[in-house]
């Protein structure tokens, strides 16, 4: 069991690290000061969850790797995050929609994880479920404002939907490791979140006057480390210190 749970935890941890990284890129560059506070706040939640997940994954693995070794010292092809979270920020519409899509998935996921057979998972879920509810609220409000704002903002929001929607399916995708962890009751079944996700998003989209596109071919591959090209550049910044100054304490 330990290898599948380790891998399934890495999937979750990488999602949080990479999305946290993307939101944090806005820090000091947000369109209004309130968002210069809200975005680091979401980033902090994401990084916080990533830390707990990496730490626990490291314990499960039992080879003495700590959160930083797991977060910083792997190669591009070893990261298991879904493709949605690594997409570049583009504009504020993309950023908020990405956050909403992810949070609308994680909220029912963490709620289900409150029933996990694994005590540590239950603990992480308990903390995260509240944070993610706020992300849905915050990002959802912006999607509504922008979708039903000016002509320009509506166009940008709809463009973001067109661009990001193909990455949604991967959220529900079960890797073999995720399946094994679900079979043991340690982590929830991702597929089971679909109804709630659709419900949350439809609700927001109704208010935002956005239409949900049909996706013929979803974009998959992140869970097996098949990332886009932007990922490598993200990693060269992320890993810089750990790579340039190996084996030091900070």
């Amino acid at each position, binding site marked *: 069991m330990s290898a599948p749970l380790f891998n399934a935890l890495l999937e979750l941890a990488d999602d949080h690290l990479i999305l946290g990284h993307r939101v944090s890129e806005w*820090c*000091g560059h947000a369109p209004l000061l309130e968002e210069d506070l809200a975005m680091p706040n979401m980033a902090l939640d994401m990084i916080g969850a990533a830390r707990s997940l990496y730490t626990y994954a490291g314990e499960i693995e039992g080879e003495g790797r700590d*959160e930083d070794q797991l977060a910083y010292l792997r190669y591009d092809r070893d990261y298991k995050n879904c493709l949605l979270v690594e997409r570049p920020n583009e*504009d504020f519409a993309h950023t908020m929609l990405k956050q909403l899509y992810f949070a609308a998935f994680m909220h029912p996921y963490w709620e289900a994880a409150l029933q996990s057979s694994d005590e540590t998972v239950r603990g992480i879920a308990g903390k995260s479920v509240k944070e993610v509810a706020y992300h849905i609220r915050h990002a959802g409000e912006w999607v509504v404002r922008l979708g039903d704002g000016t002509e320009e903002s509506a166009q940008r929001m709809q463009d973001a939907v067109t661009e990001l929607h193909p990455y949604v399916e991967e959220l529900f995708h079960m890797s073999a490791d995720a399946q094994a962890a679900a079979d043991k009751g340690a982590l929830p079944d991702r597929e089971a979140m679909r109804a709630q996700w659709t419900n949350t998003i439809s609700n927001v989209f109704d208010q935002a006057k956005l239409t949900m596109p049909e996706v013929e071919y979803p974009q998959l591959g992140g869970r097996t480390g098949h990332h886009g090209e932007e990922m490598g550049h993200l990693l060269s910044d992320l890993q810089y210190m750990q790579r340039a100054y190996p084996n030091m304490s900070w």
Partner: protein
Amino acid sequence: EEFLAKFQARIDREEKIEPNDAMPNGYRKTLVRQIGQHAHSEIVGMLPEGNWITRAPSLRRKAALLAKVQDEGGHGLYLYSAAETLGVTREQMTEELLSGKAKYSSIFNYPTPTWADIGTIGWLVDGAAIMNQIPLCRCSYGPYARAMIRVCKEESFHQRQGYEILISLCNGTEEQKQMAQDSINRWWWPSLMMFGPHDAESSHSEQSMKWKIKRFSNDELRQKFIDATVPQAEYLGLTVPDPELKWNPEKNGGKGGYDHGEIDWDEFWRVVKGHGKMNRDRIKDRKKAWDDGAWVREAALAHAEKRAARQTQHAAE
């Protein structure tokens, strides 16, 4: 005349002046300028540290840095609100910042080329800021004083965090110690400049002291900062880059204090006038954020109006 005398009497009794109170135009203007400048410093101050968020060397440090930069944004927000009580809007202030009319603390025009700078900024820059700001918690203008109480509490937490980063470096490898020493070499003098020109050269000081906006002179605060900081540098095992620095037992009325070398005032004025390494980049970054965000702010406004119109209509039906 009589009004001014009465106002001064209130100040002298240590009464707080509140937004709706009558106040001399000069008092209002001084505060608007100072609080605005202070707010801008918090906002621009997000950039040099923000530069390391994506590259922080551990997740723990990354989280702490994110929280810190977020706090700075928060300080900006309280301070803009305090300034708004004096009848100026955040938009006006932002435009003055972007046009170069309003200033911000020159210290943020120095770059952060290494991770150690994140430690040094916390320790020295926030340390100097606290020295400047603690007296402001007793400032005669109520909203400013109250904002500063909250700011100071968070700043001292940041200062400890910064110092703790340097402790890690100084307990680390030779490269890490060098990184720390190099950082203090670059930040020491600019930190001393944060207290402003010598008292004799300081244009706004006297009236501000009288109005109890300011309570100590630049040189007094600078001396306090040096006396507090030098032992901390010694504890770290770092050398303060001032060959003239020397303990003088006579100083501070016999309590002792440090004599120090002269500040390079040419550099000080050069950076204040916009010619530091990062001045142009800082304003460009802020301007880009502001311009790129225009459509978001417009959309938020448009949406709020639509929503209000719908509610009115709904109520009328």
